[in-house]
């Protein structure tokens, strides 16, 4: 009995830790994804990482490392293609999205057809995050936070007014590539929490919700991190009580809360307008 409790304590502690680390990454990077309007591009980076997961299975190394390699590669490709060629951004997004996934399917098919916990990479399973992945997540979080602090004023100007950034001599293309790479690292952090298919929701929902409450981008990041934690822990608890898939429950909970916030804020604005008239 004592053994069971200890075990339960440990896997819950790991899950909470994963949720915490995931929320930090998605809160900070998600704010830029939302204000810079690169949501679908980030979705493409996330899905293209499936190629890396497949490659990991095929060549027998960690699928998470494969995902990191592929998401970084797709982020750089996407950035260079949209900046240096005339290919429209959404076309590039669609191509990379599909290519990455197709490669993943082929790689997994070639790897003797057996892929243990494939579902946990696709849809996440926060309850089975191994400790080694927690260390990787923490390291990536550290990199993301350090970059976000160091390049705060650059990313703010990049997101607000790139043209002006160019005029005042900021290396906008390099910073844009760096931002996309930070999205790629966030995808890796979140893969274990909600899975690569649902990553895009965690990059968008907490930040979009935070935007309803503040006009200050720093406060927006703090709020997004807090919302990410609340969604993760709340979703985790609900999925445990109702015996549902944890990743999907976290996303559904955030989606419902986000929609309710939009409705509430919309109603409040309408009442305000009515009174002032």
């Amino acid at each position, binding site marked *: 009995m004592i053994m069971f409790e200890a075990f339960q304590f440990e896997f819950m502690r790991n899950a909470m830790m994963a949720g915490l680390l995931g929320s930090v990454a998605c809160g900070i990077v998600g704010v830029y994804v939302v*204000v810079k*309007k690169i949501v679908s591009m980030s979705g493409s980076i996330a899905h293209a990482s499936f190629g890396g997961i497949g490659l990991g299975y095929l060549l027998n190394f960690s699928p998470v490392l494969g995902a990191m390699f592929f998401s970084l590669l797709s982020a750089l490709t996407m950035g260079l293609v949209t900046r240096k060629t005339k290919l429209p951004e959404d076309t590039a997004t669609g191509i990379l999205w599909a290519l990455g996934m197709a490669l993943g399917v082929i790689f997994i098919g070639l790897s003797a057809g057996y892929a243990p916990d494939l579902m946990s990479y696709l849809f996440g399973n926060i309850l089975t995050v191994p400790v080694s992945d927690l260390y990787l997540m923490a390291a990536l979080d550290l990199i993301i936070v350090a970059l976000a602090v160091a390049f705060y*004023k650059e990313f703010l100007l990049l997101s*607000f007014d790139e043209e002006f950034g160019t005029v005042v001599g900021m290396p906008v293309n390099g910073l844009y590539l760096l931002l996309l790479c930070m999205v790629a690292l966030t995808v890796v952090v979140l893969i274990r929490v909600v899975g690569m298919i649902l990553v895009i929701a965690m990059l968008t929902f907490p930040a979009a919700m935070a935007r309803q409450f503040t*006009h200050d981008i720093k406060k927006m990041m703090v709020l997004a991190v807090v919302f990410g934690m609340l969604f993760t822990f709340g979703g985790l608890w609900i999925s445990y009580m109702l015996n549902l898939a944890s990743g999907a429950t976290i996303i559904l909970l955030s989606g419902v809360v986000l929609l309710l916030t939009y409705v509430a804020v919309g109603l409040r604005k309408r009442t305000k307008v009515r009174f002032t008239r």
Partner: protein
Amino acid sequence: MTGKDIVRLENVWVSYNGTPALEGINLMVGEHDFLGIIGPNGGGKSTLLKVILGLLAPQRGTVTVLGNPPDRSRSRIGYVPQHSNYDHDFPVSVMGVVTMGRYGKRGILKPYGKSDREAAEKALARVGMLSHAGTQIGQLSGGQQQRTFIARALVSDPALLLLDEPTASVDSAMQTDFYELLEDLKQEMAIIMVSHDIGAVSVFVDKIACLNVQLYYHGSREITPEILEATYKCPVQLIAHGDIPHRVLREH
């Protein structure tokens, strides 16, 4: 180089995929000049601004700003972009926007400090927007946003101010205020303003140039019907300046 030329363009040619955008442009702007450039949409106005900013290298001809190639003088150019170029819901305050203008002084990886904040406050006071420093940018009126972006351009202490279609977002009641502000700024810097709004420009600027791929520039604000016709390729109303501004319609 006399030391007085802020901008000097000599025989500048630019084309996009073989379609000419600027042909043989010669232009000189001196200290305290207030030049209005008018012309139809697609006439090359934005291209000309990009050339002056050094964002676009001409295929032929030379460009000097403050005696140097434009990209080396950029920290002395204040640029006010077109109104539509940014997201009005963006989570940033008026103060935050104006501080961005200090980027050129700081450079990469160095955070803004006290001197940047003070410069931003000074610029905001200059355009009469200091009391709105904490407001989110999108909650301002068109005219107030305009002033904020002018403050962002002023905060780097520019010798040249470039304005791209500044009147597009300002209602006509605010336009007089806006031009009075520019009149005041002219004491300290040269101003080039690009617009398709002939009426508004011609009342306030010192010199007018008409741009439609070629530049028709006479160094004064007297525009002849022939120049306007050549620019717009159709008969245009003329505005005469007198004690009472009035329009002169050509026979047609």
